[in-house]
């Protein structure tokens, strides 16, 4: 057992957990943040993507204790109050989901992709960047559309302060 202290969605949390506890289990089972999904056991699907210190990471492939001291953002931490994050709004407007299982991971990765490409995004780049996020429903077209729309929205001056 180890004590793990993390900042999750801006809130400091600490729990005693087994060392083998994966970050995703910590989030879902210890904190009840079930928005982060587990879609595979081979580290390939990306449904579990969260941000650790601002970078996209597969929460199913890191130990919670390994991340001690880090700041974690999950899908629950994106919206501000009742206002959805532009990436969430774009997925809604562009029908970027069907069953929604992959969506939290897609949105967290989408935000990461936009941040890393301030120069703007074309569809080929978005598709390449989504290599680690699998969707079994949509065929990806609307996910790409949503990320592309959000990228434009996020680059407008009003959002740049974020």
């Amino acid at each position, binding site marked *: 057992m180890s004590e793990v202290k993390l900042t999750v969605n801006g809130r400091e949390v600490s729990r005693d957990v087994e060392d083998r506890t994966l970050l995703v289990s910590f989030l879902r089972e210890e904190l009840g943040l079930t928005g982060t999904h587990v879609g595979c056991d081979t580290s390939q699907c990306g449904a579990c993507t969260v941000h650790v210190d601002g970078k996209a990471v597969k929460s199913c492939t890191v130990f919670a204790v390994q991340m001690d001291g880090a700041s974690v953002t999950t899908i629950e931490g994106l919206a501000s109050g009742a206002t959805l994050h532009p990436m969430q709004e774009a997925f809604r407007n562009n029908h970027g989901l069907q069953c929604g299982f992959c969506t939290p991971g897609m949105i967290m990765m989408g935000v990461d992709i936009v941040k890393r490409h301030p120069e703007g995004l074309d569809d080929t780049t978005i598709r390449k*960047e989504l290599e680690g996020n699998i969707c079994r429903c949509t065929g990806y077209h609307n996910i790409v559309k949503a990320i592309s729309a959000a990228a434009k929205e996020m680059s407008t001056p009003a959002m740049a302060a974020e």
Partner: protein
Amino acid sequence: MYATNYAKATSLEDAVAKLQAAEDGKFLGGGQTLIATMKQRLAAPSDVIDVTKIPELKGITVDADTVTIGAATIHSEVASSKEIAAAIPALSGLAGTIGDPAVRNMGTMGGVLANNDPAADYPAAAMALDAVIHTSKGSYPATEYFTGMFETALDDDEIITKITYQIPLKAAYEKFRNPASRYSLCSVFVAVLKNGEPRVAVTGSGNDGVFRVGAMEEALKSNFAPEAVTGIAVDPETMLADIHGSAEYRAHLVSVLAGRAVAKAG
């Protein structure tokens, strides 16, 4: 996953002492292979000792002839480093093809080289750029470091600290992916070192892991052009064969991709 104990090492001595004190310990880099394997219960170390915070494993330094990269450097850092891109663009380009963005944010160069997966990418760069693998016990030229599939010259309690690559006159990496796993089915790293020596290193295909193709290197000495290598065949007997591709198919890919890499290197 079976139970395990996690510890963060603060120095090389600390890491080695912790490993030696453990019943069946393993060093932990970014965990993108080890944790993935532990989840499947294909590995069950009693202890994992995180080496990524050890100062000796950090940093990127470039001098006139070499690029030296700390073993704990994550793939995304290699891919986005301006210094590496200026010195060896083929190496930063290669790093950008490893896995996906989230894997690249955790996985480390040391972890890849210690694991020596037959389909890993960095081993091809290490072989083609006459890399030296520095460890807590000494150093190895790449040709002596990789000893077979998932096999290296490392002892169980030996830590990779840094990797030094020769800056080539030119180089290129051609990656041909398995469409499902996205790992290399066959990939070829071609370089011309500053002493004029050509190098051709192949990953993803050899049944003994990464290897160099001497006949192609010889041919490129007198004629650095795709047609110098596309006619040279490697022996299918030395190739991997699985449901993704036969030995003959992979042998054919080696010649085709070597030609493309030479063309790309220009």
